[in-house]
């Protein structure tokens, strides 16, 4: 119990962020027209690719003789990058077609 309370007070900033982001996330897309649902889903998909940062940190911290960490970290970096780059490019391709019309 103490551990949990300690953790909460240590990470209170993070917890505030979580609470605020939950509301913001709902608020921000609340007014989206259904036309944009697919690109929005795809864009959100690219944004959660931010998990790549974690992969980079893991990879960058791995000791040179820790092969398991290096190999898994390397795969994680590749997969994370796929998520980010692929996600943004696909979204852009969809939106490009919207833009052409006047």
């Amino acid at each position, binding site marked *: 119990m103490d551990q949990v309370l300690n953790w909460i007070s240590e990470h209170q900033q993070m917890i505030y962020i979580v609470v605020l982001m*939950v509301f913001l996330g709902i608020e921000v897309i609340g007014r989206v027209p259904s036309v944009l649902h697919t690109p929005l889903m795809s864009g959100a998909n690219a944004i959660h690719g931010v998990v790549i940062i974690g992969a980079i940190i893991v990879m960058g911290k791995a000791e040179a003789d820790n092969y398991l960490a290096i190999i898994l970290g390397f795969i994680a970096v590749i997969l994370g990058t796929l998520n980010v780059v692929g996600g943004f490019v696909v979204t852009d391709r969809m939106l490009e077609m919207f833009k052409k019309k006047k």
Partner: protein
Amino acid sequence: MGISLLTVSYLVASVTYILGLKMLSNPASARKGNLIAAGGMTIAVLATIFLYEEEGNGLHNYVWIFAGLLIGSVVGTLAAKKVKMTAMPQMVSLFNGMGGACAALISIIEFNHLTRNSDGTAAYFSSLDGVNLIIIFAGLIIGSVSFAGSMIAWGKLDGRIKDHAFKGQHIVNLLFIGISVALAAFIVIARPVETPIYFYVILSLSLIYGVFFVLPIGGADMPVVISLLNSFTGVAAACGGFLYDNKAMLTGGILVGAAGTLLTILMCRAMNRSLTNVLIGSFGGGATASGGAGKAQGNYKEISLSDAAVVMSYANKVMIVPGYGLAVAQAQHTCHELEKLLTEKGVEVKYAIHPVAGRMPGHMNVLLAEADVSYDKLEEMEQANEEFASTDVVLILGANDVVNPAAKTDPSSPIYGMPILDVEQAKTVIINKRSMKPGYAGIDNDLFFRPKASMLFGDSKKVLQDLIGEVKNL
């Protein structure tokens, strides 16, 4: 200096995600929004690589990191550029699965890191930080469920995997996930010596759960599942944010988690079903039989191409209802041509777009936008339903479940309660399909046997080209 610059970079990145999502929800700014979020992401990634420090040490293994980034970027860009518009939903699902796998891998590495001393001997488990362990497990379970589920969703949309359901599957599923969570809780509380074995048991169970979770969910519900898995991955990314005290990961992850959940609920609402209903009520497998399949349905009539051309050319108002068939046939350009041709002849042509037509919400909008169809010709469902009464001809192109009257009249139908396009109010309904086979939800459609309806069989693109020819010859 470096560390505070990193903080600023993360702050900038977080703001770009919020701005990006906001701008993505407006047609005029959507593309810019996507680029802004991508820019923020680039800043966050570069800042992490060069500025991140832990206990005064920067990162190393740069060769590996850049090699990974390079491979991922090249493959990701090529895949995203080459994919056909029809395969877009699968692609999103695939990328989503990659993100989930990434989150799960991070948890695996961190777990190994936590449970091993620097000299390689097993660490004394009781000294591990309990809350950190919880976060690692959360990231592991959510990430692997999201990965496995997305892969199955991808396979299903791509036609590689069929629906599978067996009796009591939901109970088995609950057991899988229940045991994973219970094992995780057990490890956190009791810290057994065999923790690493349990850890991989949890990993396997989560993966299996992801597979069995998506397998029984049938076609029409796949968009909802992808959106749900999308928000799962968001939460898994946020777990990483807690683990590394990283605000950019946290904001990005939670933002997507929240927005994704709302989007999932909006989609369910469009189909007038609850999320539990979608997830528990297996749509594909068992429901097919109850979908009025055995009913004697009488005869349908066919219409010839030239008759269809005449009917449409001399109509005052034509509504086109596009569906997945149009997407598969890549007929959006041909469809636009027919629309222009009819408009030149003084016919008012509009498109009636059902929110879940195709395989993803907005799928049809994207497709028609590609063919340069103008915005104001696209009518959303409510608007369209008001206009059908004054419409002479409805042309249905490869849509099925979204015009199935069973959704209104037959309580035993699996799609009962879903709002549909009320095409029957129009004077004539012409239905283009490849065959009499049922649609994606696997249920028969009474509409085809109604007196107002006539069938025009064939591939959408071919039929539209022929129609154009006929209309020109009139």
